[in-house]
Every structure is written in structure tokens, then in C-alpha cells.
């Protein structure tokens, strides 16, 4: 059934996609009169060349792992959850409320509490579109994306009118108390004798995200629920015939998905900003879609893709700081990568499949690259 060997599917396709995106990006940079080689160098040193750069790359990657997993889980049930943005925003609200109004004695307890609050808020935000899909057949793509706008407006209202401290001008909540400050990678690695930048925001949430990758892998491939989710994704009628209730699967899958997206907030709201600001999600919900597509909805693939996008994000920020390449063009470059790895997957896959077919039908040459 599989035309291509596994390694080609997992490594070659994304790699060629990336290469194409890189070539196009280079052309874009050339067209505005900048040096693409220097730009790439700047991106690499800025994102990976120092522990400071790594700290930011991993910080962004943590965000993308959560949102990527959220999309991936839903995708196994053939549900396209593009509401990660709104679910993560609501998760931020959950974290802010938990951190501001509960006097936590220690950060570890606060982390658990905030993660639960974030998950609950995110799940609640996903529950309504899920219910509409399950009971009313309203398409999840439409409802989740509309819920992003509602979430933005809701957060806007809450921040401006309720959480903003009296007299403050910017729409942001008060700073969280010292007790809920999460240890950064600097704090975590110092006892091991590894010097890590103090300024970088990567924090213990990274470990939570990695743990989430493992848990989701177990859930999807080693549990009964995961089997149901995958069965439903492959064929609703078969799942129904096998006695799996579709409505329940839709609801549960979307709740898990929303909770994962919401949990992103322990990284960006609790770990980094330590207060809730406007637009705290910064598009991570949408990047999650690209991450899940590129990672082929496999938790390990999501992990790798999240780090790649973390690199792109941090590298892009460096470009904005140190070159005259306008911010908008950096978005274009990031978008090209998303386009090639996500949307234009078949453009690379189909010719590649043809090549492999040709190689296979040829009498002997074997399956090495040749």
C-alpha cells in the first residue's frame, strides 16, 4: 500500500519542502536587495548560536508543541481544530485567574493548579464548537475560527474592564506574585553545572510539553480511547458499526485538544510574561496547524516541527532586530515555510512517489537513493 518507504515519508518529504521554501525565501530576500546567506547566518546564530538564542527558540517551541499537539489530536479524529488561538487565549485567562486569586505556597503547586485551570478554560472554549459539531453538524472549521474572534473580544473586555489594575494604562493584568514564578532553564540547569542564559524565557513548561508529547503518544496508540479516535477518523460509519458513539468521540477529542491548546498558557503567560497581556498567544494557535501537519500528527513529529518553528520564530525576530528586512517580509518567509510544509505537501509528495515507483518497477537498482 505504501508507495514510499517510511524514511522518505517522514524525512525526505519535509526536507524537500523546507528546501523549496528556503530557495523561495532566498529569492525574496535577494529581491529586496539583502544578502540571503548573511540572513541565514544571522538566523542560525541568533536562534541557535547562544544559550540566549536557544532559550527563546525553546520557549517558542514549547508554545508550538502544545498547540501542535492540540491540532494533531483532533486531526486523528479528522476534526480540524483551527481554534487553538482562542483556546490558548482563554487558557491564559485561566492561568491569570489561578495565579492572581489563589495564594499558592510554592510554584510547583501553582504550576499544577494553573495547568489545570488553563486546560479547563481551553477545553471549555473548545466544548461549544464540539457540541455544535456533534449535535448540530455545524462544521468545526467554521465554528472554531469564529470562536477565535469571540475569544479575542472577550479577553479584550476582561483585560480592559476587570483585570487591569486601577490607574494602569496598558491593557494587562497585574503582575503575578513571586511565589508563582516558574523556574527558567537557567534555574533548572544551574545545579547541573550548565550555564544557561538568565534572560531567556524558556522554562519548566518545556518539560511539561515534552511530557504531554509522550502522554498523547500513549493516548493515541496505546489506549482504547485513542483507538476509538483513530477509528472514527478513518471511517465514521465503521466506528459507528463497531459500537463507538461518534458524538462522544467528537466531544472528548475536542476537549483534549482544547485543553492542550489552553495549557500553552503556562508557558507564555505564567512562564514568560508573568501577567496576562493582550495578544499573548501571538499566532501560536495557527502555527500549531503547520506544526501538526509537518509532524504528520505524530507527537514526535510535532516535537521536531515545533523546534523548527521555534527556530524560525526566533531567527525571524533576530532578522527584524539586526537587518533592514521589514517585519512583513519576515512573516512572508515564515508563511512560505508553512505553505510548503503544510499546504503544498502533495506537490512534493506526488513527484517523489512517482520517483519511488519508477525505482521500484526498475528490475534491480534497489531502494537506496542511487
Amino acid at each position, binding site marked *: 500500500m505504501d508507495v514510499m518507504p517510511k524514511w522518505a515519508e517522514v524525512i525526505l518529504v519535509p526536507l524537500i519542502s523546507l528546501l523549496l521554501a528556503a530557495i523561495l525565501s532566498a529569492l525574496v530576500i535577494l529581491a529586496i536587495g539583502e544578502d540571503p546567506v548573511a540572513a541565514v547566518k544571522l538566523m542560525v546564530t*541568533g536562534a541557535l548560536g*547562544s544559550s540566549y538564542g536557544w532559550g527563546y527558540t525553546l520557549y517558542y517551541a514549547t508554545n508550538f508543541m502544545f498547540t501542535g499537539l492540540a491540532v494533531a489530536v483532533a486531526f486523528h479524529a479528522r476534526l480540524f481544530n483551527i481554534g487553538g488561538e482562542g483556546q490558548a487565549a482563554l487558557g491564559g485567562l485561566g492561568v491569570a485567574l489561578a495565579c492572581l486569586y489563589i495564594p499558592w505556597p510554592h510554584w510547583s503547586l501553582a504550576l499544577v493548579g494553573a495547568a489545570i485551570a488553563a486546560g479547563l478554560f481551553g477545553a471549555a472554549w473548545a466544548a461549544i464548537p464540539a457540541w455544535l459539531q456533534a449535535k448540530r453538524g455545524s462544521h468545526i472549521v467554521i465554528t472554531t475560527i469564529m470562536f477565535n474572534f469571540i475569544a479575542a473580544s472577550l479577553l479584550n473586555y476582561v483585560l480592559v474592564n476587570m483585570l487591569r489594575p486601577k490607574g494602569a494604562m496598558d491593557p494587562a493584568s497585574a503582575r503575578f506574585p513571586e511565589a508563582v514564578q516558574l523556574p527558567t532553564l537557567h534555574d533548572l540547569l544551574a545545579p547541573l553545572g550548565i550555564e*544557561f542564559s538568565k534572560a531567556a524565557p524558556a522554562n519548566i513548561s518545556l518539560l511539561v510539553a*515534552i511530557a504531554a508529547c509522550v502522554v498523547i503518544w500513549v493516548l493515541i496508540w496505546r489506549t482504547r480511547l485513542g483507538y476509538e479516535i483513530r477509528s472514527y477518523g478513518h471511517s465514521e460509519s465503521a466506528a459507528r458499526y463497531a459500537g463507538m458513539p461518534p458524538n462522544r468521540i467528537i466531544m472528548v477529542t475536542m476537549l483534549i485538544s482544547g485543553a492542550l491548546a489552553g495549557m500553552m498558557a503556562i508557558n507564555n503567560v505564567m512562564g514568560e510574561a508573568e501577567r496576562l497581556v493582550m*495578544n499573548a498567544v501571538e499566532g501560536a494557535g495557527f502555527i500549531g496547524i503547520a506544526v501538526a501537519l509537518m509532524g504528520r500528527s505524530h507527537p514526535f513529529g510535532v516535537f521536531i516541527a515545533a523546534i523548527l518553528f521555534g527556530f524560525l520564530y526566533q531567527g525571524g525576530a533576530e532578522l527584524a532586530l539586526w537587518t533592514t528586512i521589514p517585519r512583513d517580509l519576515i512573516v512572508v518567509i515564515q508563511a512560505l515555510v508553512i505553505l510548503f510544509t503544510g499546504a503544498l505537501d502533495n506537490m512534493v509528495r506526488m513527484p517523489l512517489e512517482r520517483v519511488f515507483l519508477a525505482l521500484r518497477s526498475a528490475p534491480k537498482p534497489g531502494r537506496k537513493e542511487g
Partner: protein
Amino acid sequence: MTLMTKFLGAAAAAALGTGAALAEPALIFDLGGKFDKSFNEAAFTGAQRWAEETGETFREIELQSEAQREQALRRFAEAGSNPIITMGFGMADPLTSVAPDYPDTKFVVIDVTWIEGENISQIGFAEHEGSYLVGMMAAMASKTGTVGFVGGMDVPLIRHFGCGYAQGVKAVNPDAKVIANMTGTTPAAWNDPVKGSELTKAQISQGADVVYAAAGGTGVGVLQTAADENILSIGVDSNQNYMHPGKVLTSMLKRVDVAVFDAMKAGADVKTGGVITLGLAEDGVGYALDEHNAALVNDEMKAAIDAAREKIISGELEVASYYTNDSCPVLDF
């Protein structure tokens, strides 16, 4: 998890701090964007002037979202930029958390006067004084006795502008009506010319024939609509008289450019640890008079306003500040 350890190992091996000390000054623009023709552009003008006069260069970045504030601050500080000049009250909180981590870097923040930090120089402006003067002008130029005020984001700072303006209007014509509207409650309100235009139209329909925009980039829409509808407008922060010659009554100047220029000139020796408030006396605020609005401002107007200016400087006339008790004696928002 072996992959993870490998990554971290590589990270640890890499040397910390990529850029050597450049000691270039850095300028962080607020969400309105560099070319808002107003607040941020004034800063850019000042920086540009410094660069031309000294032949040196400066770093700059336009923020895209709230979340970038801290990263931009840290990145410039890590790279050795000094001083780092930041624009707007949104920087108050990020600065209080970043500045202590970089004791050798000097930070300058415009429009913030209430935070603490040994290496932070805070610069505020007496916007109510300048707004008072343009308010007087508006009342004198108005034929209908109704004038408008379009604010950007609804924050105390902008109410402060509006309050000074209303007092100036009432000083000339106690029966005058001041219509005040805010564009929004989020930073997006600094860059929404379409909404600014709508608000201006609404105010015109209520009889306003002079409209004062204190709204950053949103003001571009206010001035445009005022010119289209053939009424007068008042610009803010930068001199905006040139944008619609003969249609812009004046501009309330807030010399952000001078503040930025001075900070860059002082360089790493910029004085920190205190608050500087620039008012009429320091020429930190004022009104713009040039060839574009000369025909609109007659001698009588000019004499009255200059007299008021002298009185404010000497302390004989005191313009009430919105900040004093978070309310305005002559205007409800």
C-alpha cells in the same frame, strides 16, 4: 530525551552573547508604528537628526505585539546597545522587570513617570498645557461654538490631553460645547485611521467645526476627514500642519523628538534615576505656527495664546491636570 540533552549540551557549549559591545543607541517604537506621523514619528525624527549630525547609527525596532516588548528590550540590552530609548506607557511594566537585569545599560522611557529604577530615565510631558493653548485657538476659530476631541486609546494620558483642551476652549468661550470621543480601549486604537474618520464625521454632524486629534496614527484619518469636510483640525505630537495646508489649524507639539535627540546625544552618560517633565517653560510642548497655517491664525489669536502661555509659565494661570484626581473639571469622558 537524549535529543534534548544533546540540544542543551550544544547550547551550553556555545558562547554567551553574540554581539560584542556596540554601544549604539537603540530606539523601540510603540505599537502605533514608526511612521504614525505623530508620537513615534517624532521620536524617529529626533533620532534621525542625531544620526545626521553625528554621522553615527542607531538600532530600531517597531513592535508588533504586546508580548514583544520584553524581548526587544532584552535583545538590545544583551547586544550592548546603550542607551535604549523606549516609547509609550506600555513599556512601564516590561522595563521594571528588565532594567534591573542590566545595571550597566541606561534606559530612557517617554510618557512614563511613575516607575522606579536607578538606570531608567523617565520623561513626561505637560500635555495639558499645550492642549490648553490649542483649545483656546480652537474656540477662537470655531464659528459654531462646538469643537471636537478625538482621543486614541481611552487611558488617563489621553484624557489628560482632552482635559487641558477643554479648559482652553472654555477659557475663551464658556458656553462652548466640547464633544470628546475615544477611538478604542486597546492599543489598536493608536493606528485606526478609519475609525478616526468615522468619529470625526459623527462630531461634524453634531456641529463641531474644529476637531483635535490626540490619537497617534488614528489622527491621520481625523485630519483627512476634517479636510474633506472642509472644517479645521488640530494635529498632535509632531507638526502636522503640512498634511493638509490651510485645513489644519495648528498642531499641539510634544517635543518627543527633542527628548530623543537629547537622550541620544548624551549617549551612555544620559542621566538616569529620575523623572523629567517637559512643559511650556521647557519648550517641551507648544503649538505649531508655519507657512501652512499662517492664514488661519490671526494676530489677535496669536496675542491671546502667547499671553496665556506666559501666564502658565509664570504660574499665574494653572491648567488643571486630569491626573490630580482622575477627573476633569470641565469635561466628562
